[in-house]
């Protein structure tokens, strides 16, 4: 009887530890973008991007508040939120995808493609992003860079300001993950 109880307890403990280890989150992920034209460079960063990864299934979800981007100039932020992104109407950008060929057992670094849907300004777009995944002592870190075209997201830029904003924007991201319960 005692042996059965011990086996049950061990099984329960193992199950719990697997459940806790399945999902990891980043509360303070960083996403930055850069636009270069001959008129001006525009860069901004958001340091409170939320992300969750299901290690078992290799699924990734990201959510960010568009009004939490920090710009060098207040006027740039005002144009970004009010004229282009319309953050009152579309407050969040999201990404949902899958890490292709992901193996959570691999320690150290692996490079993988994350394929998924990025939705910004209410417009979904399928993306494939080359991503660096580090699995070290302090946890998982996922980082990378990709470019996307402004025109793909139905963003209306007045002709007068078209020269100030690049047609293609470079986006950088870095997420430091922790266990979900932390």
């Amino acid at each position: 009887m005692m042996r059965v109880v011990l086996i049950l307890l061990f099984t329960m403990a193992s199950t719990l530890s697997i459940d806790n280890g399945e999902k990891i989150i980043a509360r303070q992920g960083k996403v930055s973008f850069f636009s270069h034209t001959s008129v001006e460079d525009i860069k901004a960063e958001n340091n409170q991007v939320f992300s969750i990864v299901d290690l078992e299934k290799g699924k990734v979800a990201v959510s960010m508040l568009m009004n939490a981007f920090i710009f060098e100039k207040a006027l740039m932020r005002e144009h970004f939120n009010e004229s282009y992104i319309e953050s009152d109407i579309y407050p969040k950008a999201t990404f949902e995808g899958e890490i292709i060929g992901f193996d959570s057992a691999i320690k150290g670094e692996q490079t993988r493609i994350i394929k998924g849907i990025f939705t910004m300004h209410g417009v979904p777009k399928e993306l494939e992003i080359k991503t660096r995944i580090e699995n070290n002592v302090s946890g998982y870190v996922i980082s990378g860079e990709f470019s996307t075209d402004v025109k793909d997201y139905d963003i209306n830029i007045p002709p007068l300001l078209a020269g100030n904003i690049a047609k293609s924007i470079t986006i950088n991201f870095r997420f430091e993950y922790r266990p979900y319960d932390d």
Partner: protein
Amino acid sequence: MKSNTSFFFPVIFALSFFCLVACNDYLNDDLTEVSSKKTYTIDNLAVQLKSITKSDRDEVISVAGIVHEVNTINNRPTILLKGNVAAQMLVICDMNANQSKRIEKVKKGDSILIKGVFKGVLKDAIMLNCVIVNGN
């Protein structure tokens, strides 16, 4: 002509000054002297989030809570607040650069009141340009 110039210069100066004041917003300012629109505890913030409207976003609010963590992830001094109830959401306070000396004194478990620009909620509430009102 001279009288026109002497009239327009003060007007342009006044308009420029007004624009500087009006166009500037809380995000780059020191909020120490700015009064909060509302004060919350984290526990009632979670309840009241259901009724938060667009007009509450980008307003200066104060939140009282317990320090869950102090970190510098992304090289940003940040204080995470929690409430008394377990499994509640946290409030992520991205601190103003002028708070570095006060942050050094903040420890996990401290009760603290923080003021900042409320940006919205993901899993946790997010506030930018935060300053410590009291607690340290």
